[in-house]
């Protein structure tokens, strides 16, 4: 049965119309998702977009209100036990036992996965070495650093190679070095043909790790593609106008709002705007014609002359522009880049 599934099913996850509300608040409003075997999908979305809820539904922890899904050939609703046998979940809050040592944690999980006693010890030693925890194996997890905990959490997920690995915000709260290390580990797992569903709020993380990125906002997947496809969807260049003061910034932004309905070539439609820095970002095709039209339009608003810079769109730009489209008012303000 396993082999037939491997041969006939190119998708590890097929989910259709997943819906979930909590107390009248719609969190997921018909999410469709397909994950090819061996691929890494980066699920991006702002806080509260429902990323974790979607992961918890697909990991059998929460029952959806509607929709259906097949994971590794097992129907989510009819055969949750089969699904559990095929997945591993690495959560937002590293799900390991603080009081036990690293080795005891892995041995416990290996026991719960019913690994034969003889192979259990070997497999645990192997994983401890592989995830760089051999030296710390007999220390209590409570004494581990954030990065070590996440690595142990990942190691626990890899005791038996899963068909599908959920990584729910794996690097949230980690320092840059630990994040780099964890990315390295995830890439290694991806090379081993493990299908990975990664949720993150760090666009750089999705850019680094994911083959495909799906953007979840307002309870729906609003965009999907490779990181490059998504970036080029915004045009070739982002023009950033930096105004000398808030008044000029407001004037220009208001002019953009006024023309939003009937957008023309010289439209000032902001992809992103930052009140603090007095900047407005506008997506363009990178042509001189478009830039000239843009500057003419700014001059026509009477706002003080801005400084102009251009850059290639990043996933951040795509992300912010999609959120802006999903929640039209008030104008979005760029969230400070989380630095940890």
């Amino acid at each position, binding site marked *: 049965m396993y082999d037939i599934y491997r041969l006939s099913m190119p998708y590890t996850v097929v989910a259709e119309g997943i819906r979930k509300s909590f107390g009248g608040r719609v969190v997921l409003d018909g999410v469709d998702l397909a994950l090819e075997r061996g691929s890494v999908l980066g699920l991006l979305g702002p806080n509260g977009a429902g990323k974790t809820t979607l992961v918890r539904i697909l990991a*059998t*922890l929460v029952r959806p209100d509607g929709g259906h899904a097949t994971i590794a050939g097992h129907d989510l609703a009819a055969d949750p036990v089969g699904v559990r*046998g095929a997945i591993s979940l690495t*959560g937002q809050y590293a*799900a390991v036992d603080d009081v036990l040592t690293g080795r005891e944690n892995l041995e*416990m999980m290996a*026991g*719960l996965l019913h690994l034969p006693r003889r192979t259990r010890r070997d497999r645990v030693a192997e994983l401890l070495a592989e995830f760089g925890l051999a030296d710390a194996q007999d220390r209590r997890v409570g004494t581990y650093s954030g990065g070590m905990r996440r690595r142990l959490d990942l190691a626990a997920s890899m005791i038996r190679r899963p068909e599908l690995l959920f990584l729910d915000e794996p690097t949230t709260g980690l320092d840059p070095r630990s994040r780099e290390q964890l990315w390295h580990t995830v890439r290694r797992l991806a090379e081993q043909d493990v299908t990975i569903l990664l949720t993150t709020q760090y666009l750089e993380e999705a850019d680094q790790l994911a083959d495909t990125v799906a953007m979840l906002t307002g309870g729906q997947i609003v965009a999907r593609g490779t990181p490059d496809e998504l970036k080029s969807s915004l045009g070739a260049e982002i023009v950033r106008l930096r105004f000398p003061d808030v008044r000029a910034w407001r004037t220009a932004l208001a002019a953009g709002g006024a023309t939003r309905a009937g957008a023309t070539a010289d439209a000032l439609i902001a992809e992103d705007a930052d009140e603090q820095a007095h900047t407005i970002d506008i997506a363009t095709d990178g042509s001189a014609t478009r830039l000239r039209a843009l500057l003419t339009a700014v001059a026509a608003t009477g706002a003080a002359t801005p400084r102009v810079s251009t850059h290639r769109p990043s996933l951040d730009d795509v992300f912010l522009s999609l959120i802006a489209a999903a929640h039209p008012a008030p104008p979005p303000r760029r969230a400070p880049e989380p630095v940890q």
Partner: protein
Amino acid sequence: MSLAYAVTDSRIMITRCLRRSRRDPEAFFTALMLPIMLMLLFVYVFGGELKDSGSYVDYVVPGLIVLCAGFGAGTTAVALAADLAGGIVDRFRSMPIRASSILLGQVAASLTRNLLATALVIGVGLGIGWRPTTSVWRWVGAVAMIVLFILALSWLAAAVGLLAGGPEAANSFTFVLMFLPYVSTAFVPTRTMPAALRGFAENQPFTPIIETMRALWMGHTSTGASLGHEAWIAGVWGVGILALSWAGAAWLFRRRFAA
């Protein structure tokens, strides 16, 4: 095969819970010291005044067992609530294991911890001059009463742990369980209490449970009722609390994780 897995899962969960309690130095120390300190306190500090017939240690052992079991059950409620607040239960539930083994592990660990505390109370009691019956059958009866009582309290603790919003809330359960024995026949007979308090003390579950042990070990109750009478009421309370708490905990567990 499936049953064998369920047994393995539960055994691993029990090992985990016991390891956790052994490695919590504060809780472990308290759990060990509580029976010893209380025994010495009651017998040597209060006991001199309270003694009316025979040695006070002969009177107080069943009450201390119940008090320590109450403290232990509180620990169980806190431990379960703390587990549920962390991420590890989610990990367990996403694995192909019996979800019920999570509760079973906590309850079995609770039973083990409390039986150890009980053994300690009995040991210290014997050391300072407690002279109970030497009849094996009466001992079997007393131990059966203790096991039933601790099991019932442990499942009650599991239900409380599931119901509580977090470990802090669950902790208030310890307070209630440690307070109840004082308003029973655990430390003094009810005849000196005011009428209202006395009515409560005589009819609350701890009293018949304590009196059953007392009658089995010492040959007489403090209430004047017969062993058979107290044992029957204690049995009904014990089985009743156990059945309700078990069903309640199972229901709460399903409700919490079905939505």
